[in-house]
């Protein structure tokens, strides 16, 4: 009876999700079929325009089954995530579990950790400001094709002039300078974050998304809190640093889940990599593309590295090796396909894993801080 009581939230969630799934197949799926055949209802059109505007581009390239499978996938993924999240309340049912969770959500930290992490991220910030600054100036001739999104849509629908781009970049750099001279650290973190979001909005306003800065951006979301946490004293355990680690690891794990849920084991077929290698026409990539076994090995390696970030969250002492794997993975995409940069923000953010305070390491067996 006690066990039933303990698992009542996951059990009710499961029943609720199964009912939701039944309703989807009864009411929503027929609407999706109509939309894929070119007859969406007004409501479905609004949903598509809001959440999946690329449908109107992709419907010319893919068959209706592709979109139906995608709609089903949204249901399955939603059910899976909701079901997993329903187990979180279990951690609040007794003191021991609660303490375990609290420990999991803290990273060992020190003054040295704070300065190494902050300054590495600041250097990367300067590199990203330069990248965005030159890219935004490059796009000025295409201004009439610009489509504002997010925050930028509220501020102005127009692409910025060269003067505005200069001013925004200078403001962004100045906010970093404030950090260096130890003035208004939290405010500088917030200003940097806002300017980062604002300039990214311009950068992604030409119908193309790239993920070059994504993990770095997620870390920047936490930077003001990290600065706040270390404002006057340097705590031995940091929640902001730990949440940065969890977000970065989460990005890798979700990337791996995307591959396995979209393509299944077919993703490991060497042909998948060979086509990309041939398309990118890099010398080393073309050489590797000749060997099926090598291509399968690289695909499997990439998948295992991505998923191992989840393991690293629990086995903290393994993380340096997992980061080394991540570094090799990103350098491989650079040398084999020409994707990214030798100074890739994706591996620079590993600094949040690598400089945890050495005197406060986690216990290997329990994962708790000792």
């Amino acid at each position, binding site marked *: 009876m006690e066990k039933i009581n303990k698992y009542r939230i996951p059990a009710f969630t499961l029943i609720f999700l199964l009912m939701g799934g039944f309703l989807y197949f009864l009411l929503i799926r027929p609407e999706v079929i109509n939309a894929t055949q070119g007859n969406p209802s007004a409501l479905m059109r609004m949903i598509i325009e809001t959440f999946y505007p690329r449908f109107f581009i992709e419907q010319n390239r893919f068959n209706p089954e592709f979109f139906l499978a995608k709609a089903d996938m949204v249901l399955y993924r939603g059910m899976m995530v909701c079901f997993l999240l329903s187990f979180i309340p279990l951690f609040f049912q007794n003191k021991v579990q609660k303490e375990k969770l609290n420990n999991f959500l803290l990273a060992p930290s020190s003054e040295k950790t704070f300065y190494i992490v902050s300054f590495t991220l600041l250097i990367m910030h300067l590199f990203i400001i330069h990248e965005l600054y030159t890219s935004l100036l490059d796009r000025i001739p295409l201004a009439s094709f610009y489509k504002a999104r997010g925050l930028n849509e509220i501020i102005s629908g127009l692409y910025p002039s060269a003067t505005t781009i200069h001013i925004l970049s200078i403001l962004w750099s100045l906010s970093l300078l404030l950090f260096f001279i130890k003035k208004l650290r939290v405010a500088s973190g917030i200003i940097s974050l806002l300017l980062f979001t604002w300039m990214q909005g311009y950068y992604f306003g030409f119908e193309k998304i790239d993920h070059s800065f994504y993990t770095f951006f997620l870390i920047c979301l936490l930077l003001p809190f990290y600065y706040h946490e270390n404002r006057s004293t340097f705590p031995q355990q940091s929640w902001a640093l730990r949440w940065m680690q969890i977000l970065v690891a989460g990005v890798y794990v979700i990337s791996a889940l*995307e591959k396995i849920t979209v*393509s299944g084991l077919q993703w490991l077929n060497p042909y998948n990599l060979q086509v990309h290698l041939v398309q990118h026409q890099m010398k080393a990539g073309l050489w590797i593309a000749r060997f099926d076994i090598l291509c399968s090995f690289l695909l499997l390696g990439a998948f295992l590295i991505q998923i191992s970030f989840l393991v690293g969250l629990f086995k903290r002492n393994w993380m340096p090796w997992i980061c080394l794997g991540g570094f090799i993975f990103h350098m491989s995409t650079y040398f084999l396909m020409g994707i990214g940069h030798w100074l890739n923000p994706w591996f620079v953010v590993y600094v949040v894993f690598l400089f945890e305070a050495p005197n406060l390491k986690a216990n290997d067996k329990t994962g708790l801080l000792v």
Partner: protein
Amino acid sequence: MSTGRKLIYILTAAGLLLPFVLITDLYPFFRLGMFAEPVQPHQTQERFEIYYQQDAGFRLLDPNELSINPNNLHYLIRNYYYRNEGAVFLQKLSDLKPTPQTWRIYSYKIASDISEKDSTVLVEWRK
């Protein structure tokens, strides 16, 4: 654990999970589906080209003459074309080079090592 901290956990976790569940970008949070789709056998790659009228014939547009990055331009043509807005695209492009009266979009389909230009014009736009 403070309410503010709980809120940060919930918002950032939602930013990470929602694009995964909904299979879409929710700016500034993105779906992480790079190279996730399997490549179809004999899949063709498409390239688009812009031509503009000059004297008696048509001349290939070099994006560099308009100080445009070729990759950015290619992505835009593709999206406008598949949305059946090719004429809108050409009209906007013509603002950058006002002299030519007629503009066209052609496409290449590249399969394996053989590239072949479509003999038909995909879109034509006249001033």
